[in-house]
């Protein structure tokens, strides 16, 4: 690990945030002219490490060494000057400025305060030529597709003579072609001797591009593989999750009953083709698709957040008109939103309030007077049932961990006792232990006779917990796969190709 050929070295890095040990004694090195992969589940500590590398966060303890010299960055600017560039998922470009200006932002060539346009264009053109990108230098960055913006970000790093370039999930919004182009550039950078850090969820990519690999779990470095030749896919996954797959999901089958939710030919914003599906009492139905496939959008239409253009929703055989979330909850459909921070938690209010916010109107006296005793009782009940870890029900929800916040949102929706519950990305950003707890909870919802819809981007999760899987692609439902036939390959194939297996409930005689 203390390999002398390491150009960049992390030595015993720890990072403590209030309530969380984000990194715990992490040490590894990255060689010159190599691509070093970092994998781990959400919250494993990869992003924190990149933030420390980029100077955005100081480490609580430990040090970063560059060519054997200890370096301490107090800002991203410092790190950049030392030749370290981090290319984040959310790119740091100024959308309303031109490509050329963005490439040289902070270093615009100037003479007595006036920008030297020829110099600017010459330098920018040179860099784009190097990256073999043919982009108009005058066009505003906001008009470019993501892949090209990413190239500009890479160009920026190279113009700073970056020797270390870290990529954070660079392919998450790229197409296959664009990914190939990115890999070609990464290979060129490697050939020129850059030390490259490559963070990804996609294990296949890691095997394609990386020379070495470090696996993180819960803030700890689990293992560093210096050579990829001896590593297998399964080894990486088992290091990442820390146990075998079955243990995490612990699937329980159960009886299913009559059709509860029946969605017929619904279309609307983000759902271009009429979507039809149904969910039975006690059934857990999964929705899978790539980003932009329309899964969350379909759920938001059913829940009344967005207006449907066409179609109808039947609940227990009766048509229901849902034009707002309030209405959806009234008729018996609950939704736990995808983005916990933006759409779920109210951080400045306490746990008790966050749990009771939807159900409290069922408790009220004389129309609008709160029944505080009932609310306390309900909060205490769910804190115990869902094992929400909080010092008290008066703790502000914003102070709890992501997993516990997710449980609060679940508690909020379960308090109302609806017939249908839609869970959009219920385990995003949650540690493995809590994931398991949430899966067990989802099974128990089914066992209690609820119709459950789970939307997830994690294929193993969808396959692991659902009775039936519906695949969406480009705003349409393209396939429906029963649990017994669900494999990662088939489902991914449907999601990518957009061609179905003809087994969707669309047009099925009812």
């Amino acid at each position: 690990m203390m390999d002398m050929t390491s150009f960049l070295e992390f030595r015993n890095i720890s990072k403590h945030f209030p309530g969380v040990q984000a990194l715990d004694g992490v040490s590894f090195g990255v060689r010159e002219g190599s691509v070093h992969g970092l994998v781990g589940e959400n919250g494993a500590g990869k992003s924190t490490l990149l933030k420390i590398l980029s100077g955005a966060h100081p480490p609580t303890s430990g040090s970063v060494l560059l060519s054997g010299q200890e370096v301490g960055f107090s800002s991203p600017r410092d790190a950049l000057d030392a030749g370290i560039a981090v290319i984040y998922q959310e790119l740091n470009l100024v959308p309303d400025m031109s490509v050329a200006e963005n490439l040289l932002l902070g270093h615009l060539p100037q003479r007595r305060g006036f920008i030297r346009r020829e110099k600017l264009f010459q330098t920018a053109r040179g860099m784009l030529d190097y990256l073999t990108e043919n982009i108009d230098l005058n066009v505003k960055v906001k008009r470019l597709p993501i892949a090209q913006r990413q190239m500009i970000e890479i160009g920026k790093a190279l113009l700073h003579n970056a020797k270390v370039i870290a990529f954070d999930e660079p392919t998450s919004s790229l197409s296959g072609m664009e990914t190939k182009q990115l890999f070609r550039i990464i290979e060129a950078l490697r050939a020129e001797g850059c030390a490259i850090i490559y963070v990804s969820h996609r294990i296949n990519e890691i095997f394609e591009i990386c020379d070495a690999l470090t696996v993180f779990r819960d803030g700890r470095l689990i293992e560093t593989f210096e050579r990829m030749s001896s590593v297998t896919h399964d080894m990486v996954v088992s290091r990442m999750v820390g146990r075998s797959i079955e243990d995490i999901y612990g699937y329980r089958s159960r009886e299913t009953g009559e059709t509860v939710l029946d969605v017929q030919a619904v279309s609307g914003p983000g759902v271009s083709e009429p979507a039809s599906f149904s969910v039975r009492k006690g059934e857990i139905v999964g929705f899978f698709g790539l980003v932009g496939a329309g899964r969350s959008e379909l759920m938001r239409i059913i829940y009344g957040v967005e207006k449907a253009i066409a179609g109808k929703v039947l609940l227990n055989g009766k048509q229901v008109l849902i034009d707002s979330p309030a209405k959806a909850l009234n008729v018996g459909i609950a939704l736990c939103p995808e983005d916990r921070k933006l759409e779920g938690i109210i951080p400045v209010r306490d746990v008790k309030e966050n749990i009771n916010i939807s159900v409290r109107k069922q408790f009220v006296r004389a129309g609008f007077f709160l029944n505080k005793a009932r609310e306390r009782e309900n909060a205490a009940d769910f804190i115990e049932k869902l094992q929400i870890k909080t010092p008290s029900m008066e703790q502000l929800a914003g102070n709890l961990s992501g997993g516990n916040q997710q449980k609060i949102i679940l508690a909020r929706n379960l308090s109302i006792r609806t017939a249908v519950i839609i869970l959009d990305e219920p385990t995003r950003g949650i540690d493995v232990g809590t994931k398991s707890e949430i899966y067990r909870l989802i099974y128990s919802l089914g066992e209690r006779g609820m119709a459950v819809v789970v939307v997830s981007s994690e294929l193993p999760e969808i396959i692991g917990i659902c009775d039936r899987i519906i695949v969406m692609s480009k705003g349409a439902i393209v396939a429906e796969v029963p649990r017994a036939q669900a494999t990662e390959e088939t489902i991914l194939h449907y999601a990518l190709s957009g061609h179905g297996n003809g087994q969707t409930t669309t047009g099925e005689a009812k």
Partner: protein
Amino acid sequence: MNGNTLKVAGQQSISVGRVFSRLWENSGMIVVYIVLFILLSIFVPFFFTWRNMIALALSISMLGMVACTMLFCLASGHFDLSVSSIVAFSGVVAGVAINGTGSVILGIFAGILAGGIFGLLNGVIIAKAHINALITTLAMMHIARGFAYIVSGGQAMSIGNTGFFGLGNDIFLGVPSPIWITIACFAVFAVLINYTTYGRNTLAIGGNIEAARLAGINVDRIKIIIFSMQGLMAGFAGVILASRMTSGQPNAAQGFELNVISSCVLGGVSLTGGVAPIHGAIVGVLIMGTVQDAMSLLNIPTFYQYVVRGVILLIAVMIDQIKQHRSGKPT
């Protein structure tokens, strides 16, 4: 909770000063106010006299009333800059109505209603047209002020009916009626914010509007109610002011809106929404009024009084910032 306690930021370590620190965390400004009040009573002549106490309370009555509804506005993460103009407009409307019909009751209702209409307009525009509250109420501030001048012809409207003056000047149990009304407002709005779904939903909207919407709260309706109540309250305050001044004055209450917002912020009401204790608004109003009163008793020139008010506001929000930082509350 069933042995699953977790050490979380913001949790205080157990110590001797725990009781005090709890009081400080929850109502630091109350402590500040009590200390301030005792100091002023000792060092400022004539401060702690019945006469001065009544004068002080009377001077903050209008501020207190409107602070009640402003509290809801801030709690939901919005501002209302139009209250000052609504106060003036409704005073003028009450004057016109009383002089025109001869009926005091009709005049009072006309004034309150006039305020309510502007508030309703604010609410509908903000909720349905999705225009920023700051801009909407800024525009309404000009519009209402304009109407106050138009309706009154630019002159103070003397009100002829002496029966109207009782509203702002009657004394009950030795205390003038505006003070009783203010106390009643605080009581009603304390109940509203703490014990009703309306109050809690308002806080939820301010805390995270998307979350509130998805949790089934009718966000638009609550916004409209908040601004309508604000308009009605400003209208009521304007009517009382007209009664005290025995006339409806189109140029009344200039800059009043910022005094109301300052008072609330002074008491620890968050400008970003979601945190709005009623005792914060009360204490903020009290501090504002008390400092003003003491400065007058000490014959501090008006020009300096402005500076002192600004400095106090800055210090108060800095204390709040430090407190929040230390307790690790999400901001």
